[in-house]
């Protein structure tokens, strides 16, 4: 696997020995999972932890229970590793509560890890749109959101134009990566009232509206 490129021979040996131990007794993961980063190095930690999870002699519901416990007892780095490993594990949608928990946090590392391929497959559309907006608020780049192109719809564009209008009314900038998601629905700019801000009596609002509309045009023309 790819992680072997980053690992020292000692780290590889630890990982091989530990996955074998977990395969024969799943409980070994309780102390191995937190220790993996120290043994395998920061760059390889997520991949090493994924290997530990894959070594668990469990499937379906019991696997979900173990993964949930590891997430809930985990520090942020362990929680992120669990979220990233979800698409690799035989869980179906059983880990969705963990994704929802991560999306309620305001820790950008967790939120970013929660909008991966597992969410793209299992998260319902309403929660998915909220997750996209959360990324916008937390300054997480939207290209980190798996499946965004396929799931972006008019309602998401409506929420984003409302958000853009709010920012413009505050005289503030709108993050550039929202505009490609709005590009297919130009009528929303007028409907939400953003276009009307170009006539605002407040100079900051007029200027912010002009900048936003220009950024929209650039995205729509691209």
């Amino acid at each position, binding site marked *: 696997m790819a992680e072997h490129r980053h690992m020292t021979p000692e780290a590889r040996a630890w990982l091989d020995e530990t996955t074998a131990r977990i395969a024969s007794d799943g409980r070994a993961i309780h102390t191995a999972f937190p220790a993996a980063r120290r043994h395998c190095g920061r760059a390889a930690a997520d991949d090493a932890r994924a290997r530990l999870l894959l070594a668990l002699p469990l499937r379906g519901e019991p696997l979900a229970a173990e993964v949930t416990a590891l997430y*809930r007892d985990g520090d942020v780095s362990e929680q992120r590793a669990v979220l990233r490993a979800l698409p690799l594990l035989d869980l179906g949608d059983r880990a969705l509560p963990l994704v*929802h*928990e991560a999306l*309620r*946090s*305001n820790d950008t590392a967790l939120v970013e890890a929660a909008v991966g391929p597992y969410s793209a497959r299992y998260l319902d559309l*309403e*929660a998915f749109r*909220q997750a996209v*907006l*959360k990324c916008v*608020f937390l300054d997480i780049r939207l290209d980190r959101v798996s499946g965004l192109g396929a799931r972006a719809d008019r309602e998401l564009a409506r*929420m984003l134009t*409302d*958000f853009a*209008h*709010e920012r413009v*009314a*505050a*005289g503030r900038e709108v993050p550039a990566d929202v505009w490609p998601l709005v590009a297919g629905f130009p009528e929303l700019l007028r409907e939400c*009232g953003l276009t009307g801000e170009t006539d605002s009596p*407040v100079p900051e609002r007029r200027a912010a509206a002009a900048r936003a509309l220009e950024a929209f045009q650039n995205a729509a023309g691209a």
Partner: protein
Amino acid sequence: MRIFDPHIHMTSRTTDDYEAMYAAGVRAVVEPAFWLGQPRTTVGSFTDYFNSLLGWEPFRAAQFGIQHHCTIALNPKEANDPRCVEVLDVLPRYLAKDRVVAVGETGYDSMTKEEDEALARQLELAREYALPVLVHTPHRDKATGTRRTVDVVREAGIPPEHVLVDHLNELTVATVADSGCWMGFSIYPKTKMSEDRMVRILREYGTDRMLVDSAADWGSSDPLKTRKTADAMLADGFDADTVDKVMWRNPVAFYGQSGRLDLDELEPGPDAAALYEGNSIRRGGE
């Protein structure tokens, strides 16, 4: 100048903040129950938090000459976690306490059905205990969330003058102004609302039913934003009496509806001799 901060999370502030707030004129605060950054997973960690809002935090505030009241609720974010929902069953015990002046913060975060249920139950509790309600409006999809909040409050039969809808901005203030509810504005260094924008809103919508708070929580925030907004009002030509109305009389009128606001012991200010269960924080928090 006397200031009443109607929404500030002192749990996340230091004693230096209390000192600076007192120096700036803050004499009373209301601390709404909210989340703690780290998600809670048991009812017990909520009750410890509520007890802290009723015990340790008012004691800490009093040592710096500030009256502390609180509002109690299950916040919308944690209402989505089934492990936390049972908190709703213990709320009546807390809503009966002397220093609880409202139900709050309730409202919407992601506008889920779980949040709907928690909001409905807590509005019912507010009616039952004849308490005002502090309603948080969501960051995401705020305009929709604010309209839905106002509709739900109306359908619940709560008198609008018992409801404070907080975290408003230029695009949500009109909805709440029309509803008859009180309008809250959280002044933050970067997000939500700034002093100058607040002054423009007061010019446009007047000063009735208007509350200004600093919210001051775990994010980038400033517990002196109430004072800075008061200064911005004066600089813009509002007179001292109008500033006093917004910064003191309005919050007293809103939370006073609980019948539990106790502002008698305002002076003499910092009390170096006070002890809380044997601890004095002025001594250095031993």
